[in-house]
Structures are given as structure tokens and as C-alpha cells.
């Protein structure tokens, strides 16, 4: 695997998130201008806000554009055509049938709740002109005022010849109550418009001012744009574009400047075919092979979709329901909840949600805190839902209707407020719980089973010889000491220490002592706890003793030659000490636990078991002791974080269960050496100790009747069917839940979700963090695809796959992932392919364009990749445990890391280079884009790999690495040096680190062709390339495509 490539192909860099940009001009790539646009507006719920009208009613504009020329010559024929398709309420809500083009009232803006049914055959072409139309919304049609005014038409019956047209124009679907007021005003002017519209564009434009004036209400917001776009079209046509084929018109008609680059990139138009004259659908496609006259059966590698912009969250849901909680806290795999079981069974991806209850709000935003002192927390009496923005008040404000179970609840006297005519409470602006999707309630005493616990940190430290040798103890002791001031919850914070090798050492830290007292217990079978009251002390009172202990800890054991480790017994001792209060237990483990209960044996990584039925057992926990212990720890509100350091087998699979079932986390530092890894350990331990933590928490997700969360995945323990016990939670943990339908048919229009996390804050307050979100119910599979969220899907899929890998072979697990993707895309293909004759293309929804790539990345990720030799078993398991807890964004970054070229900006010595720019220039993960003269940073959120090209200037290397730049890079570390280049690079690295503080990325330097180091660190992680028997991206796409086409 060489990386030489003197002439790297130029990949589309920044905007290349959309490799489609390149394809735009090539007809085979279909896409969906209009429908993608509809994502934003097709789902407007009934609700209150007039703001919904802001959405561009795009349908009419384009239809005018495309239809007019076609129908112009015979006006009578036109009117027939127009009357033809009755504007069914569903289709008119998204894309008007031809009639809509001539309506004065753009139906799409109406609040019809219906689902936007994707267009089927027989509907007119909706061209990308939607974009220009939308673009013009911003510009009010003031300029139009200068157009010649038409003679004012008196009220009265229009000329008979116009009858058809008028009927047509006034066909609006019955729901148009809002427009009724404006309609009379408009009617008189509309009949004359229509004929002039056909014959003389000038007059049609001219009617607009009066038209606009006639709209005093909110509708006006939406209205002006239609004529405006219409005007543009007309002007474009004026030079006399002949009714040429559709695509050609598009290009000639629309001035390129109208396309705002970003919007257009994805939207390529379907080429018109003979049978269906220009059906534009909402899918994207890739041409695969079988290009006539071409030997190259492959694909244009650079054209494949790559998430070079990182995770792009779908915005549609937030736009539909502006009061939903942020997607940081709750992400649904698809925002369209299937309306029936049969529909759900055709959705082959997991249906569910990723919840990150304590996601950090961006700087400047805060979660509003509400304290119901007098009334108690307002909750539904039946389903216990918390009051939220989606409840409605009736009976003049005396009752509120629960949005989840629809029962009417009484409003407590102190919470009463009148409602105005539109059903809104008059005090709405003072009630954040009724306007914000995320809210925090202060919980009164009935939410406590005991007084709120203080933050408690307990350290269980392995001091056997390997821990001493690696220097772990010293780094850890220093770090803890530096964090003592910033531990949350001062002055209530409690702290305690136990060290162990073949014996267990307790430390009496009573505040009256000067020095800690060490007590050694060697009976491992029945651990006796000496002085149980003084082992866990209040930090602020015993600060001096703790300081003295941490100072002396490294030297205390520096001559220790004990190789044993009695983790199980020490764990039991710690459990006994902590069980009164609960808290966080940090275990620093250096070797395989070898004594006492819970001793583990060298098992597992046997090359012979790979591929046999025994293979999964090596990844599954062996000793039930740890599971049982984890369950007990959770019961007493103790969360365990494992820090493992060994260079040898430590059985992370078994140890990790401690973290998994207690809501903790596994940190793994293989072959820890203080000199190399100390920054990483220091940063991550500091973060673990100082980040805001929620203690003794429980979480429950409620949802509307008819759907139910069935399976949960992540680091927690289930206390009842739907109650997650989380002894400690923080912003770096996310939980996945799978949704299933309980009823064969859902009758409601909207499903509501409410995540409630009841916890004790570090300050000792009991609080409830509540996230509420609404999602529409859809009856159409295409809609589910359109509303899909790749990030959430991949996050859930990876959790399922990792769980599966504990009981199945890796090969089978990967196949299962692949099968799911194939089934998904095949189902999608069945929706659309037949009518489009797209045999040679792979089609996929725009929303899932990265799904194949992330699927491939998942199969190549550490927990699932290859076989025996591809990853060490401990690293596999540790990565698996980590991925089970990662929030969506971090997971996606881990799966498809950043690769950026930095040599230009490092060498370029001008001080004013913008680092953030560099960070955004992500490259595809393939060796082809590594230039031998370049310097690259590969960042997966957990480590940096800095790749030096072979022909990079020695000056650069010397400046960055120092004089021994020709030596062995595994021994060289990157430290700040006193020159501009080094400072620059450090600045860039810091920038990367700032973007995600939850882990520290340690730098690994790699030189080109320095095998096997290069292969291990970089080449094996280049997802787009073929590596270790796994497919390259192009091959993977081809393989998927073949499988999709089978049995269709």
C-alpha cells in the first residue's frame, strides 16, 4: 500500500460535500430541485404562527415557468388542461398541479396538514426554477410598481370568455379559510390578468401592485413572491424562447445568478424521457458502469458523495416545529413517523432516536430553569407528561390538554392565565416552559427518595509494578491534584482513595490528621473495611490531607515490585465505602486482575477461534462477577469510569461491563507511557473530573400512544421497561432507543416525544431536564426517506452492530449492516426506479446520500473491522464501549475523520492566516489525495495523525520535529518549538482540539512509506480506499448496487 502519488487528482474541496456539483451538467444525475425544497415547507402543521407563511410557496412559480410556453399557443387547450387535474388537497399542498400555476393563491402556503405526497406520474415537471422563485421572496416586488399600470377593472362579472380561467383560479382547496378575506379583493383583478398573462407579459406584471395591496393580512407575505417570480420568468421568456425541450429552457430562462450556489448543488434535473415528460423526483442517483462505449466499468471516484462538511443535520423538523428541542438533545432516525405497521416494516433502517439529555448548548444559550414553587410541577395526571409547548389550553384557560395522551387536566389556580382568541395564554412570554422545547424544572421534595447526594469522587488505583513503571501514577496524582479546586459541588464534594496490588490499601483522610494514614488489608476473600467513616471525606475539610496524599502517592509505591492486582476485592471494598452516598468511581487498572474475586484469565485473542462459533465469546464479558457488581453499583448510584493502561491483554470486554451498566465510560491507553501519553491522560481525566455532571439520575422517554420505545442502547441500566438508571450523566453521553408501533394504524397527525431526566445537580438541587419534540406522522414511504437523518441512523445502526458483534461473528455483523443498507436502498429503488427506467444507476434519497459511505466506515471501524490481525481485542472492545456512548456528531467524526492539508498554511509565514479556514478544507479519505510534498493532519476526534510526505521540504520537518527528524517517528513527539512554523501548526492543532474538548487528540507522526507505521496509523484508516481485504468506496457502491438490483 503505497501512498505515492506525484500528481494528486484535484478533488473538489470545500463545496464538494456535494460532488453533485460536478455532475450538474450531466443529465444522468437526477435530483430534486423542487421536492427538496418542499422539505422545508410541506409539513407545516396546523398551528398558530403566521410565521409559517414565510416558507416560499414555490410550486406555482416554477410551474408557470415551465408550463407557460408549452401551453401558450392554443389558449383554449390551456384552459382545458388547467381544469383537468383537480387540485387534490394533498398534492396541492406541496406541488401544485398545473392549475396551481395559474392560481392567484399559492395553495402550498396554506396550512393544510396533509402529507406532501411525492409526485407521481402525470404531474407536471417541477423544475429547479423553484430556487429562483424562493430567492425572490426576499425582494419585495417594489420594482414592479414601475410597470405600466393596467386599467383598473371595475368589480363585476368578468368577461364570459374568462369563465374557465376564473373558476380555475378560485378553486382553492376548502381549507383556505385564511384567504377568504382577501379573496374578494383579488377576484376582480384576476380575470383580466389571465388572458394578458398568456399574451402580453407586461400587463400581467402590472396587475401586481394592486394585487399586493389587496392583501392586508399575513398572506401578503407569501403572495408577493409568486408574481415576482412570475415576472422574472416572463421577462426571461420575453426574448422569445421557443418551446424547446425542458432542460434547455431551464438553462436559458434562469439567469445563473439566481442560483445561490449552495442550494443548487444538489439539485439536478431529471432528464425528460419519452414516457414521462420530465418527471423530477426527490432522489439522487449515481451512474454506475455500463456506460456504452466505455471500458471503465467503475464510477467516477471523485463524484461519490462524501460528508466533507461533517454532520449536516436535517433542518426540516426544526422548521416544521420551531418549538422542538434542539437536535443536539434528540435526533430521530426519520422525522416522519410511519402511520402503519406495514409501512414501518418497509422501513428497513432502525426506527428510533438518539438522545443526549445534557448536550451542551452553544455558548450564549442557556437552558431556562423554571421553579414551580406554589403549584408543584405541572404534569398530566394520567401519563405524567410534563407541561410543554405543545399542550393546548381550553375552557378559557382553566384546563389544559395533554399533547401525549389527550386528556384534559385542570390548571392549578396559581398557574391560571387567560387565553386570548387564538388559544394562546396571555402570559406566554413569561412562561419558558410553554415556548421552549428544552427546559429545566426544579424538583420539589417529592422527587427525592433521599436528600440530594453530594458530588463524590472515589479513586481506585492499581499500584502494581506496571503502573509504577509506566509513570501513570505520577501523571494521575498530579492531574487529580490540579483538579481539586475545580471539582464541581464545592464545598460538599467528597473524595476518597483506595490503592491495591495484591493487598488493598485504605487511606484515612480525617481532617484532623496531618498526613493520611495507610491501612493495609490482605485478606482478599472477606475484605474488612477499617475506619469506614474516615475513608470518604469532605474535600474542603480534608484538603490538606488529600494534597499530602497525592503528593506522596507516586513516591510511596515507586519501589513496588508486586505484579498482582486484586481488582475484584478492591472493587467490593470501594463499593462498601461508597454505598451510603453513591458517586463516581474511577478505576485505574494496569494489568489483568489476577487475584481474589473477579480474577480474569488470559483468554480470547486466539487466532484459531476467528471465523468459528467461539469467536464472539472473546468480545463478550466472561466473568459474571463484573456484571453482577455493575448491577449492584448502579443500584447504589455509583458510576464507574475505567481507565485501562496495560500493554498486555486486560480483558476490557469484562472490565468494560462495569462502565456499561453504570452509565460510565471506558478510557483505554494501550501501552501507556507517561512521556508520550501524559497530555492525553491529563486532559481526559481533567475533563472527566470537572465537567458538569448530573448525579443519581433516571431518564424516561415518553411518547404518544400508539408508538413505544422498546429497546435502549448505550451505557446505562434499565430499572424498569422504560426507565434508564444513570448514576452519572454528562454532556458526552448519548443514548439510543428504538421505536416500535403498537397499533396497526396511527390515527393522529403528530407524535410527541418527551425526554425527562431527573437528576441531582452538583450544587445539590434536584432537577428535571425535559426535552419535548414533535414529529409528523406520514403515510408514505417516500416521505420517511425524505425526512431521514443519516447521522442518527448511523449512530443507532452502529450501536446495534456493536451489540451484535458480541454474540455473532464479525463477518456476520458486517454483512448484517450491509444487508440493511441494501434493503433500504432496494425499497427506495422500488419506489422510483420503475417509472424512470434507471437500470444503470444507483438511486438513493438525498437525505441518505452518505449512508453507504458511513456504512462502509462502520464496517471498517475498530470494533467491526477485519479479523484477528486487524485490531487488538482490547482495542476493539474499548472502541466498542466508547462508540456505544458517543453523541452523533462525534461518532460521525470518528467514522469519517477529517483529513486536511496544512503545509501551505504552515509554510506561509504571514501571521494572518485563518486557521478555521484550513479546518474546513476537508479532503476525501483516500491515499490519492496525499501529495508527497504535503503535510496532512488526520483527525478522528481521538487522535491526530500527522503525515509527512516523502518530498516535503526538510526545512519544514526540521522546524516542526526538531533535529532528529530523520529518526524513528514513533519516538518523536511534537512539541512546541521556537519557530513560526511550529507555532502555526500548534495553533492549527489547538483549533482542532477546541472544536471538541471531550477527548484529547494525541499526535502521532507518520512519514510516508514508513511501514508498517504508516499502514497502521493512516492507510488502514483511509475509509475510501481498499484496505485489509475491505472494499474501497467505489467497490462498495458497486457491490451494493449489484445486490440492490438482485431480486428487484
Amino acid at each position, binding site marked *: 500500500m503505497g501512498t505515492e502519488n506525484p500528481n494528486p487528482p484535484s478533488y473538489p474541496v470545500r463545496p464538494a460535500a456535494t460532488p453533485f456539483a460536478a455532475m450538474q451538467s450531466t443529465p444522468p444525475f437526477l435530483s430534486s430541485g423542487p421536492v427538496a425544497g418542499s422539505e422545508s415547507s410541506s409539513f407545516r402543521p396546523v398551528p398558530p404562527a403566521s410565521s409559517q407563511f414565510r416558507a416560499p410557496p414555490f410550486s406555482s412559480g416554477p410551474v408557470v415557468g415551465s408550463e407557460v410556453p408549452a401551453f401558450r399557443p392554443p389558449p383554449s387547450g390551456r384552459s382545458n388542461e388547467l381544469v383537468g387535474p383537480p387540485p387534490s388537497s394533498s398534492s396541492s399542498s406541496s406541488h401544485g398541479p398545473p392549475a396551481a400555476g395559474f392560481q392567484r393563491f399559492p395553495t402550498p402556503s396554506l396550512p393544510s396538514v396533509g402529507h406532501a405526497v411525492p409526485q407521481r406520474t402525470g404531474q407536471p415537471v417541477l423544475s429547479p426554477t423553484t430556487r429562483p422563485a424562493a430567492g425572490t421572496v426576499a425582494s419585495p416586488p417594489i420594482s414592479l410598481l414601475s410597470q405600466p399600470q393596467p386599467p383598473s377593472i371595475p368589480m363585476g362579472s368578468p368577461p364570459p370568455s374568462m369563465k374557465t380561467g376564473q373558476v380555475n383560479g378560485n378553486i382553492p382547496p376548502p381549507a383556505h379559510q385564511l384567504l377568504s378575506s382577501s379573496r374578494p379583493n383579488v377576484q376582480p383583478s384576476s380575470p383580466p390578468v389571465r388572458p394578458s398573462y398568456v399574451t402580453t407579459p407586461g400587463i400581467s406584471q402590472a396587475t401586481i401592485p394592486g394585487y399586493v395591496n389587496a392583501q392586508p393580512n399575513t398572506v401578503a407575505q407569501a403572495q408577493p413572491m409568486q408574481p415576482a417570480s412570475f415576472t422574472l420568468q416572463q421577462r426571461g421568456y420575453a426574448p422569445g424562447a421557443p418551446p424547446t425541450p425542458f432542460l434547455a429552457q431551464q438553462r436559458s430562462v434562469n439567469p445563473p445568478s439566481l442560483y445561490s450556489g449552495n442550494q443548487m448543488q444538489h439539485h439536478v434535473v431529471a432528464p425528460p424521457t419519452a414516457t414521462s415528460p420530465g418527471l423530477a423526483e426527490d432522489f439522487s442517483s449515481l451512474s454506475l458502469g455500463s456506460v456504452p462505449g466505455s471500458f471503465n466499468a467503475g464510477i467516477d471516484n471523485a463524484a461519490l458523495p462524501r460528508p466533507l462538511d461533517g454532520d449536516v443535520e436535517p433542518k426540516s423538523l426544526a422548521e416544521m416545529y420551531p418549538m422542538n428541542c434542539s437536535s443536539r438533545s434528540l435526533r430521530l432516525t426519520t422525522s416522519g413517523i410511519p402511520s402503519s405497521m406495514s409501512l414501518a416494516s418497509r422501513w428497513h433502517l432502525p426506527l428510533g432516536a438518539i438522545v443526549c439529555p445534557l448536550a451542551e448548548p452553544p455558548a450564549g444559550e442557556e437552558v431556562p430553569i423554571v421553579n414551580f414553587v406554589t403549584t408543584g410541577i405541572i404534569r398530566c395526571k394520567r401519563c405524567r407528561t410534563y407541561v410543554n409547548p405543545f399542550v393546548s389550553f381550553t375552557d378559557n384557560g382553566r384546563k389544559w390538554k395533554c399533547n401525549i395522551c389527550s386528556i384534559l387536566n385542570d390548571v392549578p389556580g396559581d398557574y391560571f392565565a387567560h387565553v386570548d382568541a387564538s388559544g394562546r395564554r396571555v402570559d406566554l412570554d413569561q412562561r419558558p416552559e410553554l415556548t421552549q422545547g428544552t427546559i429545566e424544572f426544579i424538583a420539589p421534595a417529592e422527587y427525592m427518595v433521599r436528600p440530594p447526594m453530594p458530588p463524590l469522587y472515589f479513586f481506585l488505583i492499581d499500584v502494581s509494578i506496571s503502573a509504577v513503571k509506566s509513570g501513570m501514577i505520577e501523571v494521575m496524582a498530579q492531574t487529580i491534584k490540579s483538579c481539586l479546586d475545580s471539582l464541581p459541588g464545592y464545598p460538599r464534594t467528597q473524595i476518597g482513595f483506595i490503592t491495591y496490588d495484591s493487598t488493598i490499601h485504605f487511606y484515612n483522610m480525617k481532617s484532623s490528621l496531618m498526613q493520611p494514614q495507610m491501612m493495609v488489608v490482605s485478606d482478599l476473600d472477606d475484605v474488612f473495611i477499617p475506619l469506614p467513616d474516615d475513608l470518604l471525606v469532605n474535600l474542603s475539610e480534608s484538603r490538606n490531607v488529600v494534597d499530602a496524599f497525592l503528593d506522596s502517592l507516586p513516591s510511596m509505591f515507586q519501589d513496588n515490585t508486586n505484579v498482582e492486582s486484586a481488582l475484584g476485592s478492591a472493587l467490593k471494598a470501594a463499593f462498601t465505602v461508597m454505598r451510603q452516598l453513591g458517586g463516581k468511581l474511577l478505576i485505574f487498572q494496569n494489568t489483568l486482575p489476577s487475584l481474589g474475586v473477579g480474577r480474569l484469565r488470559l483468554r480470547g485473542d486466539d487466532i484459531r477461534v476467528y471465523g468459528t462459533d467461539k469467536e464472539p465469546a472473546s468480545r463478550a464479558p466472561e466473568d459474571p462477577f463484573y456484571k*453482577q457488581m455493575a448491577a449492584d453499583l448502579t443500584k447504589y448510584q455509583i458510576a464507574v469510569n475505567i481507565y485501562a493502561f496495560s500493554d498486555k491483554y486486560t480483558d476490557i470486554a469484562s472490565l468494560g461491563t462495569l462502565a456499561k451498566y453504570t452509565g460510565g465510560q471506558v478510557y483505554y491507553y494501550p501501552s501507556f507511557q507517561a512521556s508520550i501519553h501524559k497530555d492525553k491522560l491529563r486532559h481526559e481525566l481533567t475533563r472527566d473530573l470537572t465537567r458538569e455532571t448530573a448525579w443519581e439520575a433516571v431518564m424516561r422517554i415518553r411518547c404518544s400512544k400508539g408508538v413505544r420505545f422498546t429497546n435502549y442502547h448505550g451505557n446505562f441500566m434499565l430499572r*424498569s421497561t422504560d426507565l434508564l438508571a444513570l448514576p452519572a450523566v454528562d454532556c458526552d453521553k448519548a443514548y439510543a432507543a428504538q421505536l416500535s408501533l403498537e397499533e396497526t394504524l396511527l390515527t393522529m397527525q403528530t407524535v410527541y416525544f418527551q425526554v425527562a431526566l431527573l437528576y441531582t445537580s452538583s450544587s445539590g438541587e434536584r432537577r428535571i431536564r425535559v426535552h419535548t419534540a414533535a414529529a409528523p406522522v406520514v403515510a408514505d414511504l417516500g416521505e420517511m426517506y425524505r425526512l431521514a437523518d443519516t447521522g442518527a441512523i448511523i449512530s443507532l445502526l452502529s450501536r446495534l452492530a456493536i451489540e451484535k458483534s458480541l454474540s455473532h461473528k464479525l463477518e456476520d455483523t458486517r454483512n448484517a449492516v450491509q444487508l440493511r443498507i441494501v434493503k433500504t436502498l432496494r425499497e427506495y429503488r422500488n419506489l422510483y426506479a420503475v417509472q424512470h427506467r434507471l437500470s444503470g444507476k444507483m438511486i438513493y434519497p438525498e437525505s441518505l446520500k452518505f449512508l453507504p459511505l458511513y456504512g462502509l466506515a462502520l464496517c471498517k471501524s475498530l470494533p467491526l473491522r477485519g479479523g484477528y490481525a486487524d485490531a487488538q481485542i482490547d482495542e476493539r472492545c474499548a472502541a466498542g464501549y466508547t462508540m456505544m456512548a458517543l453523541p452523533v456528531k462525534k461518532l460521525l467524526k470518528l467514522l469519517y475523520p477529517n483529513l486536511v492539508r496544512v503545509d501551505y498554511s504552515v509554510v506561509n509565514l504571514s501571521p494572518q492566516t485563518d486557521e478555521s479556514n484550513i479546518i474546513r478544507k476537508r479532503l476525501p479519505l483516500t491515499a490519492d489525495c496525499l501529495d508527497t510534498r504535503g503535510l496532512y493532519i488526520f483527525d478522528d476526534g481521538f487522535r491526530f495523525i500527522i503525515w509527512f510526505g516523502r518530498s516535503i521540504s526538510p526545512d519544514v520537518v526540521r522546524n516542526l520535529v526538531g533535529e532528529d527528524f530523520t529518526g524513528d517517528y514513533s519516538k518523536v513527539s511534537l512539541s512546541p518549538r521556537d519557530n513560526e512554523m511550529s507555532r502555526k501548526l500548534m495553533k492549527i492543532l489547538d483549533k482542532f482540539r477546541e472544536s471538541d474538548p471531550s477527548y484529547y487528540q494525541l499526535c502521532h507522526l507518520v512519514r510516508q512509506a514508513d511501514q508498517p507505521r504508516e499502514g497502521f496509523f493512516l492507510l488502514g484508516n483511509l475509509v475510501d480506499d481498499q484496505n485489509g481485504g475491505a472494499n474501497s468506496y467505489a467497490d462498495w457502491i458497486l457491490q451494493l448496487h449489484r445486490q440492490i438490483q438482485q431480486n428487484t
Partner: protein
Amino acid sequence: MAWEPIIWIIFSVLNLALLGLNFYQFLGFSDLEADYLNPYELSSRINSVIVLEYLLHGVFCIMFLVTGHWVMFLVSLPPAYYNLKQYLSKQHLVDVTEVFRVLNAEKKVRLVKLGFYVVFFGLVITRLALSVVFVVFGDDDEAIHWFG
């Protein structure tokens, strides 16, 4: 031959005990589902009786074998095989951390076993009645050979 009814009485008592144990477990799982019981209690309850149940069933089987009731022995064999398999693969105990994942499957198993023991109890009672009839009237042994 008065011991024949006595053996059948013992069998029916054993059968009742198995029925009771299974019902107890089934109840535990339903309670867990309805949130009347937490997983810790459930697992300690079930794990304390599961081995007893397996042993009881083993005794049940062996007694049929020893007393020469071949057909009954064969009928009682499949559950015994299932139990042994579970025990040997160490899957007989309820894992408190993952109990909700296996809840439905475990419930189904208990339900099937419950059904089996009910049917079996019917057989045992019939045999008991027949043996009593046989002992009382002494002369007609056809009925017994009917059932082997």
C-alpha cells in the same frame, strides 16, 4: 400392589410443585413488565428457584425411568433436555443487567412449560385414578396397559 397409587401420588405432588415454581417465575416476569418488581428482586427470586426447578424435574424424570413408566419418561424428556442445555451453557440464571432484553422470550418459555406441566398433570391424575381403581377392584389391568 398398593405402592402404585402411592407413586402416582408422589408424581402428582412433584408435578404440582413444578407447576407452582413455573407459575411463580411467570408471575415474576409479568410483574417486572408491569413495573411491580425491579430487576434486582426478580433476578434474585428467579435465580433462587431455577436450580430447584431443574433438579425437581430431573428427579421427576428419573423416577419415571426407575419405576418403569416409559411413555411418561419419554414425554418428560424434552423439557429435561432443554433444562440441561440451559444449565450447561450457563444461561439458566437471569442476568439482572439484560433482563429486559430477554423478558419476552423468558416469559414465553415459562408459558410453554406451564402448559406442558398442566397437560402432564392431567396425565398423572388420570394414571393415579386408574391405579386407585386397579387397586380397589384388583382384577382389571387392561386400563393400565392402555397407558403403558
